[in-house]
């Protein structure tokens, strides 16, 4: 019998209360009738099934009834319904969008087999925590370790594809044959490289990306086994990779076999390999790290000069993104969560107020026999229905917002540019919606239904002190959260301004850039390259509006690396102290074109040839490091395999970007390089300063390049301003989103204050009337209302400021030197909150002053 009693709990409490006793009675009679064990078992089985089915049916009946009632109530108060749905939509939408991007970038497993076992290996030296490996160190690490099951390497390369429509510049990678087994991905069609492909002198083979196969080769399957021409050399297509294979990043369009030559293993300082490895089962990253640091130590002892201070970094493939990217996303999630909290607080507040208004209605229903449980359930159904409508709208908001958030997806991960929306996201949005509905619905429902029949008695005023306390707490929470959001956005805004105000070292406006990367070995001879550059530059300089043009190895900011150790006679070469400088080959006129000030001496010139003395133009930061307070002109230093003499000094450029520290720069004349040397550093980026708009200029430039070399592709057409803006794109996007969140929060908090005070004034109308009748002046009444408002605001601001400081500390890495306790930001945020309080309380205060004692008394 006890079990049956427990079973009845499956029914709604109202139903159980109504019919439970009789149902137990019937069950008792049935049990008495059942004779024998078998009949008893049959009865129980039957009863069990019957209760489950009927309980579900009764719940469904109740739900339908509640939903009908909800639809009627919401239709009666469309203003409330609209506001509530919109507020939920904002909260759910903000969080779903933030979750989708964050999950995509930080959490979701990478599209490889057993991604949690994949790591990337880097050399680390003082000043550089992640540096590519030299082939010799790669070979030794691979041979000596026991932590990894497999290890593979790749070198990012780019090549020119000709013979398939317009010549095209493609990014790709030269990979060792053992790389794909590490990643555990199969080609869509065809085969992966074998050790026969990556040995020296093997015929060229290439795998193509799905996109390239579709776009350039028409998705024709017969392409397998055919030859394509990359940088003048034939490569046999051996396979197509699946569409979601983006390795090492999403730009990769082809993969060739990396063919090491014996001489590649001679120089341990020539670092260009990215290394991926798969941990052995049961080996942790920490264990692998420990072993690799022992191996690095052994190699350092063996090669004390080249491997001086060279350690090993082992980083999970998933974690290959900057702290900045991670923080940007975490801050976004935190802010979205704040918005949701405020939304919930606001709705709870709204519902409490509504509950007070509806007290009579509820009391009537209670008098008609509805139990408290039934009323609470009805009200929670109501808030869940509002939440569900808001949730659906929120999902739409999130889907529309997602494309705007792709700038927050870092390029360094082997994932797509745009997050995908799938079941994970939908489940998250669903859960969030339900939690939101419960979050803002339950307490107000419990409170409203505490009402008893006394509310029906005439003259009982609604709303006790306790309810006001709860509502005050909600308003304080709203103010707190909006202060946190305001301060966080303020700090990030100041950080952004500070970064944008930083001098990049060049004048970006009016500079158009594009890349003509020359094919190799076609342009192995320096003289051939000279000829090409001269033809292009002469043609471009003659175009209308063009004031100057030049070539450089890599554009600042677009490429931060490309560094070389510096040897100074006075300060012997010591790799450990990061005696490195960024190395660029330039044609004459580069500094003038970029607006980099020439401070001393001269630019490189056409007469700086391979037969003349080897010269260099260095940056002011270079001079400051090696010859402070001395005349650097005529000084010598060892760089790029030669002794070089300083002939000029130019301003420092932020090569590594606005937020990072950059190495000093060394610019070498483009003619002073032996045939076949420094392939990587060959000038490829053309910079043009012009007063003509880029679109007008481009067709002419294309013609000029075509006439210099018919097979030469043009890629990466951008203005220098775009490159600089790209530096802060993710930041300014994040700031815009955060700013929008803060604005929403601010508005909601203002509405919260306004709502609470309006209600309080309305409820205390009689008290205010009596006070006025007894001679209280307007200023007393005004003071009474405003005191209340400011008490709430000040409490919220104090709490918010403390939390905002803590949030600022967390975000410190993003603040670019702005202090987490930045006084200006805090003052502005606090000021805004006070203004908001004033505005929010103005109307209720005026209404309180205007209370007419006679009208109020008469109404009573």
């Amino acid at each position, binding site marked *: 019998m006890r079990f049956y009693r427990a079973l009845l709990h499956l*029914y709604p409490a109202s*139903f159980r209360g*109504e*019919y439970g*006793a*009789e*149902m137990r*009675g*019937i*069950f008792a*009679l049935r049990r008495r009738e059942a004779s024998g064990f078998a009949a008893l078992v049959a009865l129980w089985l*039957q*009863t069990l099934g*019957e*209760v489950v*089915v*009927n*309980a579900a*049916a*009764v719940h469904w*009946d109740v739900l339908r009834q509640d939903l009908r009632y909800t639809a009627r109530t919401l239709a009666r108060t469309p203003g409330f319904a609209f506001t509530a749905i919109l507020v939920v939509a904002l909260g759910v939408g903000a969080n779903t969008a933030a979750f989708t991007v964050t999950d995509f970038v930080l959490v979701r497993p990478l599209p490889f087999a057993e991604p949690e076992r994949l790591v990337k290996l880097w050399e680390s030296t003082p000043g550089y925590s992640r540096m590519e490996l030299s082939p010799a160190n790669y070979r030794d690490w691979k041979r000596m370790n026991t932590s990894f099951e497999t290890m593979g390497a790749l070198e990012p390369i780019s090549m020119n594809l000709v013979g398939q429509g317009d010549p095209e510049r493609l990014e790709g990678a030269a990979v060792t044959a053992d790389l794909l087994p590490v990643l555990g991905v199969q080609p869509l069609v065809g085969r992966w490289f074998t050790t026969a492909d990556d040995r020296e002198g093997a015929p060229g083979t290439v795998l193509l990306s799905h996109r390239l196969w579709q776009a350039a080769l028409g998705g024709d399957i017969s392409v397998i086994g055919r030859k394509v021409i990359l940088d003048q050399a034939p490569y046999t297509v051996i396979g197509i990779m699946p569409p979601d294979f983006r390795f090492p990043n999403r730009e990769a369009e082809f993969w060739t076999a990396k063919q090491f030559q014996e001489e590649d293993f001679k120089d341990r300082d020539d670092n260009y390999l990215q290394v991926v490895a798969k941990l052995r089962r049961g080996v942790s990253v920490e264990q692998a790290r420990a072993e690799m640091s022992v191996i690095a130590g052994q190699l350092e002892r063996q090669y004390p000069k080249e491997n001086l201070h060279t350690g090993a970094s082992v980083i999970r493939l998933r974690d290959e993104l900057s702290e900045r990217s991670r923080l940007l996303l975490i801050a976004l999630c935190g802010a979205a969560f704040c918005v949701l909290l405020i939304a919930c607080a606001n709705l709870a507040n709204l519902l409490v107020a509504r509950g007070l208004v509806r007290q009579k209605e509820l009391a009537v229903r209670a008098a008609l026999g509805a139990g408290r449980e039934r009323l609470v359930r009805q009200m929670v159904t109501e808030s869940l229905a509002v939440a569900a409508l808001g949730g659906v709208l929120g999902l739409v908001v999130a889907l529309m917002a997602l494309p705007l958030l792709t700038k927050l997806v870092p390029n360094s991960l082997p994932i797509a540019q745009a997050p995908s929306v799938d079941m994970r996201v939908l489940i998250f949005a669903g859960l969030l919606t339900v939690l939101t509905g419960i979050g803002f619905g339950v307490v107000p429902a419990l409170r409203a239904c505490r009402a008893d029949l006394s509310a029906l008695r005439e003259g009982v005023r609604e709303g006790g002190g306790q309810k006001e306390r709860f509502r005050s707490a909600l308003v304080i929470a709203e103010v707190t959260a909006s202060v946190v959001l305001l301060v966080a956005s303020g700090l990030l805004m100041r950080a952004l301004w500070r970064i944008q105000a930083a001098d990049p070292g060049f004048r970006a406006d009016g500079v158009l850039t594009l890349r003509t990367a020359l094919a190799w070995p076609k342009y192995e001879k320096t003289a051939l390259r000279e000829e090409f550059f001269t033809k292009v530059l002469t043609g471009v300089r003659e175009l209308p509006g063009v004031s100057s043009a030049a070539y450089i190895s890599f554009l600042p900011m677009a490429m931060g690396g490309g560094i070389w150790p510096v040897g100074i006679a006075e300060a012997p070469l010591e790799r450990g102290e990061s005696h490195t400088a960024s190395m660029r080959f330039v044609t004459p006129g580069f500094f003038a074109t970029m607006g980099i000030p020439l401070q001393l001496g001269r630019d490189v010139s056409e007469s700086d040839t391979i037969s003349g003395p080897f010269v260099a133009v260095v940056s002011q930061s270079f001079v400051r490091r090696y010859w402070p307070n001395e005349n650097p002109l005529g000084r010598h230093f060892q760089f790029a395999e030669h002794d070089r003499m300083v002939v000029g000094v130019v301003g420092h450029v932020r090569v590594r970007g606005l937020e990072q520290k950059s190495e000093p720069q060394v610019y070498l004349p483009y003619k002073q390089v032996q045939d076949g040397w420094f392939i990587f550093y060959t000038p490829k980026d053309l910079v043009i300063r012009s007063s003509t708009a880029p679109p007008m200029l481009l067709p002419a430039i294309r013609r000029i390049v075509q006439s210099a070399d018919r097979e030469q592709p043009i890629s990466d057409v951008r203005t220098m301003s775009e490159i600089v803006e790209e530096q802060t794109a993710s930041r300014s996007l994040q700031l815009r989103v955060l700013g929008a969140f803060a604005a929403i929060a601010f508005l909601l908090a203002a509405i919260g204050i306004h709502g609470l005070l309006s209600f309080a004034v309305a409820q205390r109308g009689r008290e205010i009337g009596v006070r006025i009748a007894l001679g209280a002046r307007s200023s007393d009444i005004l003071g009474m209302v405003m005191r209340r408002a400011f008490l709430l605001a000040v409490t919220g601001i104090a709490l918010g400021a403390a939390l905002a400081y803590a949030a600022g500390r967390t975000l410190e890495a993003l603040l670019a030197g702005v202090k987490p306790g930045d006084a200006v930001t805090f003052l502005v945020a606090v000021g805004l909150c006070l203004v908001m309080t004033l505005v929010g309380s103005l109307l209720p205060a005026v209404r309180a002053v205007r209370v007419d004692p006679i009208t109020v008394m008469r109404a009573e």
Partner: protein
Amino acid sequence: MSDSTPQADSLLPLPPATFHILMALAEEDRHGYAIIQDVAARTGGELKLSAGTLYRSIQRMLEQGLIVETQERPAPELDDERRRYYRITPFGTAVARAEARRLTQLVKLARASGFAPGKA
């Protein structure tokens, strides 16, 4: 269709349990267990309503106004104070009639199609 109102028609077809309960209440007021017994007797033991089905139907029938709970109790010695007695309302009677008519029509149609025995 004299006493069938549009409102009564809107409830048709009735769930079998509801129709049986209405029939059980046609002669006299009954409490829950008596309804179960009456339905069982009427159907020759074929239909044994479970407590859950009975009270779920009763709750819905009360809301629809097909039945009411009566305050009149039988003689004290027969009464159990836990028990509630239910009475069919005029509306309930109308609905039951409408349902009966609907079923009759249906059977007529079935006969015409040769599905059922008896006179057409």
